[in-house]
Protein backbone atom coordinates (compact mmCIF):
# COMPACT_ATOMS: atom_id res chain seq x y z
CA UNK A 1 0.00 0.00 0.00
CA UNK A 2 1.36 3.34 -1.01
CA UNK A 3 0.26 6.91 -0.49
CA UNK A 4 1.21 10.12 -2.23
CA UNK A 5 2.14 13.12 -0.12
CA UNK A 6 1.97 16.36 -2.04
CA UNK A 7 3.29 19.65 -0.78
CA UNK A 8 2.61 22.93 -2.55
CA UNK A 9 3.56 26.38 -1.37
CA UNK A 10 6.24 29.03 -1.11
CA UNK A 11 9.75 27.62 -1.35
CA UNK A 12 11.74 27.68 1.90
CA UNK A 13 14.41 25.82 3.82
CA UNK A 14 13.53 22.58 5.57
CA UNK A 15 10.39 21.40 3.82
CA UNK A 16 11.74 18.03 2.72
CA UNK A 17 13.39 17.54 6.11
CA UNK A 18 10.13 18.22 7.94
CA UNK A 19 8.06 15.87 5.78
CA UNK A 20 10.58 13.04 5.88
CA UNK A 21 11.05 13.34 9.65
CA UNK A 22 7.30 12.98 10.21
CA UNK A 23 7.19 10.03 7.79
CA UNK A 24 10.05 8.33 9.63
CA UNK A 25 8.25 8.81 12.93
CA UNK A 26 5.15 7.09 11.50
CA UNK A 27 7.29 4.33 9.96
CA UNK A 28 6.29 5.33 6.43
CA UNK A 29 9.09 4.35 4.08
CA UNK A 30 9.90 6.98 1.46
CA UNK A 31 10.08 5.33 -1.95
CA UNK A 32 10.33 8.19 -4.36
CA UNK A 33 10.54 11.96 -4.27
CA UNK A 34 10.01 14.41 -7.12
CA UNK A 35 10.21 18.12 -6.60
CA UNK A 36 10.33 21.22 -8.69
CA UNK A 37 9.69 24.93 -8.49
CA UNK A 38 6.84 26.07 -10.75
CA UNK A 39 6.91 29.86 -11.00
CA UNK A 40 7.44 30.88 -7.36
CA UNK A 41 5.76 27.76 -5.99
CA UNK A 42 7.52 24.80 -4.56
CA UNK A 43 5.85 21.51 -5.55
CA UNK A 44 6.90 18.20 -4.05
CA UNK A 45 5.44 14.75 -4.54
CA UNK A 46 6.55 11.94 -2.29
CA UNK A 47 5.46 8.33 -2.63
CA UNK A 48 5.59 6.48 0.67
CA UNK A 49 4.96 2.87 1.59
CA UNK A 50 2.25 2.83 4.26
CA UNK A 51 1.99 -0.96 4.72
CA UNK A 52 3.81 -0.86 8.05
CA UNK A 53 2.59 2.39 9.51
CA UNK A 54 2.70 2.49 13.29
CA UNK A 55 -0.32 4.79 13.31
CA UNK A 56 -3.45 5.45 11.24
CA UNK A 57 -3.10 7.21 7.91
CA UNK A 58 -5.32 9.95 9.37
CA UNK A 59 -2.80 10.52 12.18
CA UNK A 60 0.01 10.87 9.67
CA UNK A 61 -2.06 13.41 7.76
CA UNK A 62 -2.89 15.38 10.90
CA UNK A 63 0.76 15.41 11.93
CA UNK A 64 1.82 16.73 8.50
CA UNK A 65 -0.96 19.31 8.37
CA UNK A 66 -0.12 20.45 11.89
CA UNK A 67 3.46 21.17 10.81
CA UNK A 68 2.64 22.49 7.36
CA UNK A 69 4.75 25.69 7.64
CA UNK A 70 1.99 27.47 5.69
CA UNK A 71 2.12 25.02 2.79
CA UNK A 72 -0.74 22.95 1.39
CA UNK A 73 -0.12 19.32 2.25
CA UNK A 74 -2.23 16.42 0.94
CA UNK A 75 -1.98 12.76 1.80
CA UNK A 76 -3.91 10.56 -0.57
CA UNK A 77 -3.92 6.83 -1.17
CA UNK A 78 -2.19 6.00 -4.45
CA UNK A 79 -5.24 4.14 -5.82
CA UNK A 80 -7.14 7.34 -6.53
CA UNK A 81 -4.52 8.49 -9.05
CA UNK A 82 -4.22 5.07 -10.65
CA UNK A 83 -7.96 4.68 -11.05
CA UNK A 84 -8.48 8.17 -12.45
CA UNK A 85 -5.60 8.26 -14.88
CA UNK A 86 -5.03 4.68 -16.00
CA UNK A 87 -7.28 2.28 -17.84
Amino acid sequence: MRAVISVIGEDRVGILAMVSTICAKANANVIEVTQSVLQEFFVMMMVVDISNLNCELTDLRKDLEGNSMGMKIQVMHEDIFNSMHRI
Partner: protein
Amino acid sequence: MPNFNDIIETITMIQEENLDIRTITMGISLLDCCDEDVDRSCEKVYKKIYNCANNLVKTGNDIQQKYGIPIINKRVSVTPIAMLAGASGGDPVKYALTLDRVAKDVGVNFIGGYSALVHKGFSPGDEELLKSIPKALSATEYVCASVNIGSTKSGINMDGVRTMGKVIRETAELTADRQCIGAAKLVVFCNAPEDNPFMAGAFHGPGEPNCVINVGVSGPGVVRAALAKADKDLDLTQIADIIKKTAFKITRMGQLVGSEASHRLGVPFGIVDLSLAPTPAVGDSVAHILEEIGLESCGAFGTTAALALLNDAVKKGGVMASSNVGGLSGAFIPVTEDEGMVAAVRSGNLTVEKLEAMTAVCSVGLDMIVIPGDTSSEVIAGIIADEAAIGMVNSKTTAVRIIPAIGKKEGEELEFGGLLGGGPVMKINQSSPAGMISRGGRIPAPLQSLKN
Protein backbone atom coordinates in the same frame (compact mmCIF):
# COMPACT_ATOMS: atom_id res chain seq x y z
CA MET B 1 4.94 6.50 -9.24
CA PRO B 2 1.82 8.10 -10.66
CA ASN B 3 2.62 10.79 -13.18
CA PHE B 4 3.50 14.18 -11.63
CA ASN B 5 1.00 16.05 -13.80
CA ASP B 6 -1.76 13.54 -13.08
CA ILE B 7 -1.31 14.09 -9.34
CA ILE B 8 -1.46 17.86 -9.79
CA GLU B 9 -4.54 17.51 -11.97
CA THR B 10 -6.40 15.40 -9.40
CA ILE B 11 -5.51 17.74 -6.54
CA THR B 12 -6.57 20.81 -8.55
CA MET B 13 -9.88 19.14 -9.42
CA ILE B 14 -10.62 18.51 -5.76
CA GLN B 15 -9.30 21.70 -4.23
CA GLU B 16 -10.17 24.32 -6.79
CA GLU B 17 -12.82 22.86 -9.06
CA ASN B 18 -15.16 21.39 -6.44
CA LEU B 19 -14.81 17.76 -7.49
CA ASP B 20 -16.50 15.56 -4.94
CA ILE B 21 -18.38 12.38 -4.34
CA ARG B 22 -21.80 13.90 -3.96
CA THR B 23 -23.34 10.98 -2.18
CA ILE B 24 -22.98 7.43 -1.01
CA THR B 25 -26.53 6.16 -0.84
CA MET B 26 -27.41 2.86 0.76
CA GLY B 27 -30.52 1.30 -0.73
CA ILE B 28 -32.40 -0.88 1.73
CA SER B 29 -35.34 -3.14 0.96
CA LEU B 30 -38.10 -2.93 3.56
CA LEU B 31 -40.28 -5.64 2.02
CA ASP B 32 -39.48 -7.96 4.91
CA CYS B 33 -40.76 -5.31 7.36
CA CYS B 34 -44.37 -5.51 6.15
CA ASP B 35 -46.78 -6.22 8.97
CA GLU B 36 -50.53 -6.00 9.33
CA ASP B 37 -50.06 -3.66 12.29
CA VAL B 38 -48.64 -0.25 11.39
CA ASP B 39 -46.80 0.25 14.69
CA ARG B 40 -45.12 -3.15 14.51
CA SER B 41 -44.25 -2.46 10.89
CA CYS B 42 -42.62 0.87 11.87
CA GLU B 43 -40.64 -0.85 14.58
CA LYS B 44 -39.28 -3.38 12.08
CA VAL B 45 -38.46 -0.57 9.66
CA TYR B 46 -36.46 1.27 12.31
CA LYS B 47 -34.51 -1.85 13.28
CA LYS B 48 -33.71 -2.89 9.74
CA ILE B 49 -32.50 0.53 8.62
CA TYR B 50 -30.52 1.02 11.81
CA ASN B 51 -28.82 -2.36 11.50
CA CYS B 52 -27.92 -1.87 7.84
CA ALA B 53 -26.86 1.77 7.95
CA ASN B 54 -25.36 2.46 11.36
CA ASN B 55 -21.84 2.22 9.94
CA LEU B 56 -22.54 4.12 6.74
CA VAL B 57 -21.50 7.58 7.89
CA LYS B 58 -18.33 6.38 9.59
CA THR B 59 -17.36 4.33 6.53
CA GLY B 60 -17.92 7.33 4.28
CA ASN B 61 -15.74 9.50 6.50
CA ASP B 62 -13.00 6.86 6.60
CA ILE B 63 -12.93 6.61 2.81
CA GLN B 64 -12.79 10.39 2.57
CA GLN B 65 -9.73 10.32 4.81
CA LYS B 66 -8.03 7.57 2.85
CA TYR B 67 -8.36 9.10 -0.60
CA GLY B 68 -8.54 12.78 0.32
CA ILE B 69 -11.71 13.18 -1.72
CA PRO B 70 -14.68 14.92 -0.07
CA ILE B 71 -17.77 12.75 0.32
CA ILE B 72 -20.48 15.32 0.85
CA ASN B 73 -23.55 13.27 1.70
CA LYS B 74 -24.38 9.89 3.14
CA ARG B 75 -27.94 8.91 2.49
CA VAL B 76 -30.39 6.07 2.69
CA SER B 77 -33.09 5.12 0.20
CA VAL B 78 -35.81 2.60 1.00
CA THR B 79 -38.57 0.58 -0.61
CA PRO B 80 -41.50 2.85 -1.56
CA ILE B 81 -43.38 3.26 1.71
CA ALA B 82 -46.75 2.97 -0.08
CA MET B 83 -46.07 -0.78 -0.34
CA LEU B 84 -45.71 -1.09 3.42
CA ALA B 85 -48.65 1.22 4.02
CA GLY B 86 -50.73 -0.98 1.72
CA ALA B 87 -49.96 -4.02 3.85
CA SER B 88 -50.36 -2.40 7.24
CA GLY B 89 -53.06 0.19 6.70
CA GLY B 90 -53.07 2.95 9.30
CA ASP B 91 -51.64 6.45 9.05
CA PRO B 92 -48.66 6.54 6.64
CA VAL B 93 -47.21 9.56 8.47
CA LYS B 94 -46.11 7.12 11.18
CA TYR B 95 -43.65 5.71 8.65
CA ALA B 96 -42.36 9.18 7.83
CA LEU B 97 -41.72 9.89 11.51
CA THR B 98 -39.95 6.53 11.84
CA LEU B 99 -37.75 7.25 8.82
CA ASP B 100 -36.92 10.69 10.21
CA ARG B 101 -35.96 9.26 13.58
CA VAL B 102 -33.73 6.53 12.17
CA ALA B 103 -32.09 8.96 9.72
CA LYS B 104 -31.19 11.19 12.64
CA ASP B 105 -29.93 8.26 14.71
CA VAL B 106 -27.62 6.86 12.00
CA GLY B 107 -26.50 10.39 11.07
CA VAL B 108 -27.39 10.47 7.36
CA ASN B 109 -28.23 13.71 5.56
CA PHE B 110 -31.44 12.54 3.90
CA ILE B 111 -33.62 9.46 3.66
CA GLY B 112 -35.61 8.89 0.47
CA GLY B 113 -38.45 6.53 -0.24
CA TYR B 114 -41.60 8.12 1.11
CA SER B 115 -42.80 7.16 -2.30
CA ALA B 116 -45.46 5.54 -4.40
CA LEU B 117 -45.38 4.08 -7.90
CA VAL B 118 -48.74 4.89 -9.44
CA HIS B 119 -47.93 5.15 -13.15
CA LYS B 120 -50.77 2.85 -14.13
CA GLY B 121 -53.11 3.30 -11.21
CA PHE B 122 -53.45 3.20 -7.45
CA SER B 123 -53.06 0.04 -5.39
CA PRO B 124 -53.97 -0.12 -1.67
CA GLY B 125 -51.84 2.32 0.28
CA ASP B 126 -50.95 4.55 -2.69
CA GLU B 127 -53.69 7.14 -2.39
CA GLU B 128 -53.34 7.35 1.40
CA LEU B 129 -49.61 7.91 0.99
CA LEU B 130 -50.05 10.62 -1.65
CA LYS B 131 -52.53 12.48 0.53
CA SER B 132 -50.25 12.20 3.56
CA ILE B 133 -47.20 13.70 1.83
CA PRO B 134 -47.80 17.35 2.88
CA LYS B 135 -48.16 16.37 6.52
CA ALA B 136 -45.23 13.92 6.36
CA LEU B 137 -42.86 16.48 4.83
CA SER B 138 -43.90 19.24 7.21
CA ALA B 139 -43.47 17.01 10.26
CA THR B 140 -40.02 15.69 9.31
CA GLU B 141 -36.62 17.08 8.54
CA TYR B 142 -34.75 14.36 6.69
CA VAL B 143 -37.47 12.57 4.73
CA CYS B 144 -37.78 12.97 0.95
CA ALA B 145 -40.83 11.95 -1.04
CA SER B 146 -41.30 10.97 -4.67
CA VAL B 147 -44.15 9.72 -6.79
CA ASN B 148 -43.94 8.09 -10.21
CA ILE B 149 -47.01 9.07 -12.21
CA GLY B 150 -46.07 7.90 -15.68
CA SER B 151 -43.86 5.66 -17.79
CA THR B 152 -43.21 4.90 -21.44
CA LYS B 153 -44.61 1.40 -20.89
CA SER B 154 -47.82 2.42 -19.15
CA GLY B 155 -48.69 6.00 -20.11
CA ILE B 156 -49.53 8.78 -17.68
CA ASN B 157 -51.89 8.37 -14.75
CA MET B 158 -53.70 11.70 -14.94
CA ASP B 159 -55.58 11.09 -11.71
CA GLY B 160 -52.17 10.85 -10.06
CA VAL B 161 -51.07 14.03 -11.84
CA ARG B 162 -54.16 15.91 -10.59
CA THR B 163 -53.59 14.71 -7.04
CA MET B 164 -49.90 15.68 -7.13
CA GLY B 165 -50.80 19.22 -8.27
CA LYS B 166 -52.74 19.57 -5.05
CA VAL B 167 -50.13 17.77 -2.95
CA ILE B 168 -47.32 20.09 -4.09
CA ARG B 169 -49.38 23.19 -3.25
CA GLU B 170 -50.45 21.84 0.10
CA THR B 171 -46.88 20.81 0.99
CA ALA B 172 -45.65 24.34 0.25
CA GLU B 173 -48.50 25.81 2.30
CA LEU B 174 -47.76 23.64 5.33
CA THR B 175 -44.09 24.66 5.25
CA ALA B 176 -44.68 28.30 4.28
CA ASP B 177 -43.01 29.43 7.52
CA ARG B 178 -39.83 27.59 6.43
CA GLN B 179 -39.43 28.97 2.90
CA CYS B 180 -41.89 26.32 1.63
CA ILE B 181 -39.05 23.81 1.94
CA GLY B 182 -41.36 20.77 1.95
CA ALA B 183 -41.91 21.15 -1.79
CA ALA B 184 -38.14 21.07 -2.35
CA LYS B 185 -38.12 17.53 -0.95
CA LEU B 186 -40.87 16.24 -3.23
CA VAL B 187 -40.33 14.95 -6.77
CA VAL B 188 -42.92 13.82 -9.30
CA PHE B 189 -41.41 11.43 -11.83
CA CYS B 190 -42.10 9.85 -15.17
CA ASN B 191 -39.91 6.77 -15.79
CA ALA B 192 -38.34 6.96 -12.32
CA PRO B 193 -35.09 4.97 -12.01
CA GLU B 194 -35.08 2.42 -9.20
CA ASP B 195 -31.43 2.91 -8.28
CA ASN B 196 -30.99 6.68 -8.28
CA PRO B 197 -28.78 7.81 -5.37
CA PHE B 198 -29.63 11.51 -5.69
CA MET B 199 -32.23 13.23 -3.56
CA ALA B 200 -34.98 14.14 -3.40
CA GLY B 201 -35.96 11.40 -5.86
CA ALA B 202 -34.06 8.42 -4.44
CA PHE B 203 -36.00 5.29 -3.55
CA HIS B 204 -35.07 1.62 -3.48
CA GLY B 205 -37.05 -0.03 -6.25
CA PRO B 206 -38.86 -3.34 -5.73
CA GLY B 207 -36.53 -5.01 -8.25
CA GLU B 208 -33.43 -4.13 -6.25
CA PRO B 209 -31.51 -6.48 -3.92
CA ASN B 210 -31.88 -6.52 -0.14
CA CYS B 211 -29.21 -3.91 0.46
CA VAL B 212 -26.97 -2.11 -2.01
CA ILE B 213 -24.51 0.78 -2.26
CA ASN B 214 -25.02 3.37 -4.98
CA VAL B 215 -22.67 6.27 -5.52
CA GLY B 216 -23.35 9.66 -7.06
CA VAL B 217 -20.38 11.64 -8.35
CA SER B 218 -20.42 15.21 -9.43
CA GLY B 219 -18.14 17.82 -10.90
CA PRO B 220 -19.59 20.59 -13.05
CA GLY B 221 -16.67 22.77 -11.95
CA VAL B 222 -14.16 20.25 -13.29
CA VAL B 223 -15.84 20.09 -16.70
CA ARG B 224 -16.07 23.87 -16.91
CA ALA B 225 -12.41 24.25 -15.95
CA ALA B 226 -11.36 21.66 -18.56
CA LEU B 227 -13.24 23.61 -21.24
CA ALA B 228 -11.85 26.93 -20.02
CA LYS B 229 -8.30 25.62 -20.38
CA ALA B 230 -8.93 24.32 -23.92
CA ASP B 231 -8.15 26.26 -27.10
CA LYS B 232 -10.88 28.70 -28.04
CA ASP B 233 -10.94 27.50 -31.67
CA LEU B 234 -11.79 23.84 -30.96
CA ASP B 235 -14.85 22.59 -32.83
CA LEU B 236 -17.78 20.99 -31.04
CA THR B 237 -16.64 17.43 -31.69
CA GLN B 238 -13.42 18.25 -29.87
CA ILE B 239 -15.38 19.92 -27.07
CA ALA B 240 -17.45 16.74 -26.69
CA ASP B 241 -14.22 14.78 -26.50
CA ILE B 242 -12.86 16.92 -23.65
CA ILE B 243 -16.11 16.50 -21.70
CA LYS B 244 -16.00 12.74 -22.31
CA LYS B 245 -12.45 12.41 -21.01
CA THR B 246 -13.23 14.49 -17.94
CA ALA B 247 -16.40 12.49 -17.23
CA PHE B 248 -14.34 9.32 -17.51
CA LYS B 249 -11.92 10.43 -14.80
CA ILE B 250 -14.69 11.56 -12.47
CA THR B 251 -16.58 8.31 -12.88
CA ARG B 252 -13.48 6.23 -12.19
CA MET B 253 -13.22 7.95 -8.87
CA GLY B 254 -16.86 7.13 -8.14
CA GLN B 255 -16.25 3.51 -9.06
CA LEU B 256 -13.26 3.36 -6.71
CA VAL B 257 -15.15 4.88 -3.79
CA GLY B 258 -18.24 2.76 -4.43
CA SER B 259 -16.28 -0.49 -4.55
CA GLU B 260 -14.42 0.42 -1.39
CA ALA B 261 -17.63 1.36 0.46
CA SER B 262 -19.33 -1.82 -0.67
CA HIS B 263 -16.34 -3.91 0.46
CA ARG B 264 -16.08 -2.23 3.86
CA LEU B 265 -19.79 -2.45 4.55
CA GLY B 266 -20.16 -5.99 3.19
CA VAL B 267 -22.96 -4.85 0.90
CA PRO B 268 -23.12 -5.39 -2.89
CA PHE B 269 -22.15 -2.49 -5.11
CA GLY B 270 -25.03 -1.21 -7.23
CA ILE B 271 -24.26 1.62 -9.60
CA VAL B 272 -22.28 4.77 -10.14
CA ASP B 273 -24.51 7.67 -11.08
CA LEU B 274 -22.40 10.18 -12.93
CA SER B 275 -24.43 13.32 -12.82
CA LEU B 276 -23.20 16.84 -13.18
CA ALA B 277 -25.06 18.09 -10.14
CA PRO B 278 -24.44 21.77 -9.51
CA THR B 279 -24.18 23.34 -6.07
CA PRO B 280 -24.62 26.97 -5.08
CA ALA B 281 -20.82 27.14 -4.57
CA VAL B 282 -19.10 29.56 -6.92
CA GLY B 283 -17.80 27.73 -10.00
CA ASP B 284 -19.90 24.60 -9.53
CA SER B 285 -22.49 25.43 -12.14
CA VAL B 286 -23.90 23.57 -15.16
CA ALA B 287 -25.06 26.89 -16.65
CA HIS B 288 -21.45 28.04 -16.68
CA ILE B 289 -20.41 24.95 -18.64
CA LEU B 290 -22.98 25.84 -21.30
CA GLU B 291 -21.69 29.41 -21.32
CA GLU B 292 -18.12 28.13 -21.58
CA ILE B 293 -19.14 26.24 -24.73
CA GLY B 294 -19.95 29.63 -26.20
CA LEU B 295 -23.30 31.04 -25.08
CA GLU B 296 -23.59 34.60 -23.83
CA SER B 297 -26.02 33.39 -21.19
CA CYS B 298 -27.66 30.11 -20.30
CA GLY B 299 -31.12 30.28 -21.86
CA ALA B 300 -29.93 31.82 -25.14
CA PHE B 301 -30.90 29.98 -28.33
CA GLY B 302 -28.35 27.20 -28.66
CA THR B 303 -28.73 26.23 -24.99
CA THR B 304 -30.72 23.07 -25.73
CA ALA B 305 -28.17 21.94 -28.31
CA ALA B 306 -25.24 22.63 -25.99
CA LEU B 307 -26.97 20.74 -23.18
CA ALA B 308 -27.67 17.79 -25.49
CA LEU B 309 -23.98 17.63 -26.34
CA LEU B 310 -22.98 17.90 -22.69
CA ASN B 311 -25.43 15.27 -21.48
CA ASP B 312 -24.43 12.78 -24.14
CA ALA B 313 -20.68 13.28 -23.70
CA VAL B 314 -21.03 12.83 -19.94
CA LYS B 315 -22.79 9.50 -20.43
CA LYS B 316 -20.26 8.26 -22.98
CA GLY B 317 -17.31 9.04 -20.73
CA GLY B 318 -19.06 7.49 -17.75
CA VAL B 319 -20.02 4.27 -19.52
CA MET B 320 -16.40 3.61 -20.45
CA ALA B 321 -15.27 4.15 -16.87
CA SER B 322 -17.61 1.85 -14.99
CA SER B 323 -19.44 -1.35 -15.82
CA ASN B 324 -22.31 -0.29 -13.60
CA VAL B 325 -23.43 3.14 -14.64
CA GLY B 326 -27.03 3.73 -13.65
CA GLY B 327 -29.42 6.09 -11.92
CA LEU B 328 -29.95 9.33 -13.77
CA SER B 329 -26.42 9.83 -15.16
CA GLY B 330 -26.27 13.06 -17.12
CA ALA B 331 -26.55 16.77 -16.46
CA PHE B 332 -28.88 18.19 -13.83
CA ILE B 333 -30.41 21.61 -14.31
CA PRO B 334 -31.84 22.59 -10.90
CA VAL B 335 -32.31 26.34 -10.94
CA THR B 336 -31.92 27.39 -7.31
CA GLU B 337 -28.91 25.10 -6.78
CA ASP B 338 -26.94 26.61 -9.66
CA GLU B 339 -25.61 30.16 -9.39
CA GLY B 340 -25.32 30.42 -13.18
CA MET B 341 -28.97 29.42 -13.67
CA VAL B 342 -30.10 31.87 -11.01
CA ALA B 343 -28.14 34.65 -12.72
CA ALA B 344 -29.69 33.72 -16.08
CA VAL B 345 -33.20 33.87 -14.56
CA ARG B 346 -32.49 37.24 -12.94
CA SER B 347 -31.25 38.67 -16.23
CA GLY B 348 -34.39 37.46 -17.98
CA ASN B 349 -32.50 35.10 -20.29
CA LEU B 350 -33.80 31.86 -18.82
CA THR B 351 -37.52 31.15 -18.77
CA VAL B 352 -39.58 28.16 -17.66
CA GLU B 353 -40.44 27.43 -21.30
CA LYS B 354 -36.74 27.21 -22.19
CA LEU B 355 -36.11 25.02 -19.19
CA GLU B 356 -38.88 22.70 -20.38
CA ALA B 357 -37.17 22.36 -23.75
CA MET B 358 -33.87 21.67 -21.98
CA THR B 359 -35.44 18.82 -20.02
CA ALA B 360 -36.03 16.94 -23.26
CA VAL B 361 -32.28 16.47 -23.63
CA CYS B 362 -30.91 16.41 -20.08
CA SER B 363 -31.12 13.69 -17.49
CA VAL B 364 -33.94 15.02 -15.32
CA GLY B 365 -36.65 17.66 -15.56
CA LEU B 366 -37.97 20.93 -14.20
CA ASP B 367 -35.98 21.02 -11.03
CA MET B 368 -35.91 23.44 -8.10
CA ILE B 369 -37.99 26.09 -9.81
CA VAL B 370 -39.72 28.63 -7.59
CA ILE B 371 -43.14 29.64 -8.92
CA PRO B 372 -45.63 32.28 -7.71
CA GLY B 373 -47.50 31.36 -4.54
CA ASP B 374 -50.92 31.90 -6.07
CA THR B 375 -50.37 29.30 -8.83
CA SER B 376 -53.37 26.95 -8.88
CA SER B 377 -53.04 23.22 -8.34
CA GLU B 378 -54.39 22.69 -11.89
CA VAL B 379 -51.55 24.74 -13.40
CA ILE B 380 -49.06 22.73 -11.35
CA ALA B 381 -50.73 19.54 -12.59
CA GLY B 382 -50.43 20.87 -16.14
CA ILE B 383 -46.69 21.42 -15.65
CA ILE B 384 -46.36 17.86 -14.36
CA ALA B 385 -48.35 16.45 -17.29
CA ASP B 386 -46.22 18.27 -19.88
CA GLU B 387 -43.00 17.12 -18.27
CA ALA B 388 -44.25 13.54 -17.98
CA ALA B 389 -45.26 13.58 -21.66
CA ILE B 390 -41.70 14.54 -22.64
CA GLY B 391 -40.35 11.65 -20.58
CA MET B 392 -42.94 9.15 -21.77
CA VAL B 393 -42.46 9.81 -25.49
CA ASN B 394 -38.67 10.04 -25.32
CA SER B 395 -38.24 6.95 -23.10
CA LYS B 396 -36.33 8.97 -20.54
CA THR B 397 -36.70 10.05 -16.95
CA THR B 398 -38.32 13.41 -16.40
CA ALA B 399 -39.31 14.95 -13.12
CA VAL B 400 -40.90 17.99 -11.60
CA ARG B 401 -39.69 19.57 -8.39
CA ILE B 402 -41.24 23.00 -8.17
CA ILE B 403 -41.79 25.17 -5.14
CA PRO B 404 -44.86 27.41 -4.95
CA ALA B 405 -43.61 30.38 -2.91
CA ILE B 406 -46.66 30.89 -0.74
CA GLY B 407 -47.42 34.58 -0.26
CA LYS B 408 -44.78 35.67 -2.79
CA LYS B 409 -44.94 37.04 -6.29
CA GLU B 410 -42.71 37.08 -9.34
CA GLY B 411 -39.37 38.71 -8.60
CA GLU B 412 -39.41 37.96 -4.86
CA GLU B 413 -37.04 35.27 -3.60
CA LEU B 414 -36.92 32.09 -1.55
CA GLU B 415 -33.74 31.10 0.29
CA PHE B 416 -33.36 27.46 1.33
CA GLY B 417 -29.69 27.50 2.24
CA GLY B 418 -27.20 24.63 1.96
CA LEU B 419 -27.10 22.56 -1.21
CA LEU B 420 -30.65 23.60 -2.12
CA GLY B 421 -29.61 27.23 -2.60
CA GLY B 422 -32.24 29.83 -3.35
CA GLY B 423 -33.60 31.96 -6.15
CA PRO B 424 -36.22 34.25 -7.59
CA VAL B 425 -39.89 33.40 -8.17
CA MET B 426 -40.16 32.74 -11.91
CA LYS B 427 -42.90 33.93 -14.19
CA ILE B 428 -45.14 31.15 -15.45
CA ASN B 429 -48.10 31.01 -17.81
CA GLN B 430 -51.15 31.07 -15.54
CA SER B 431 -53.84 30.27 -18.12
CA SER B 432 -55.84 27.33 -16.83
CA PRO B 433 -55.63 23.70 -17.95
CA ALA B 434 -58.38 22.86 -15.41
CA GLY B 435 -60.75 21.34 -17.96
CA MET B 436 -58.19 18.81 -19.14
CA ILE B 437 -56.88 18.06 -15.67
CA SER B 438 -60.37 17.43 -14.25
CA ARG B 439 -61.05 14.76 -16.89
CA GLY B 440 -58.62 12.40 -15.16
CA GLY B 441 -58.08 8.94 -16.56
CA ARG B 442 -54.91 7.75 -18.21
CA ILE B 443 -53.00 9.00 -21.22
CA PRO B 444 -52.41 5.74 -23.10
CA ALA B 445 -48.87 4.44 -23.49
CA PRO B 446 -47.28 5.66 -26.73
CA LEU B 447 -46.29 3.47 -29.67
CA GLN B 448 -42.74 3.52 -28.28
CA SER B 449 -43.95 1.14 -25.56
CA LEU B 450 -44.67 -1.65 -28.02
CA LYS B 451 -41.17 -3.02 -28.38
CA ASN B 452 -41.85 -6.69 -27.76
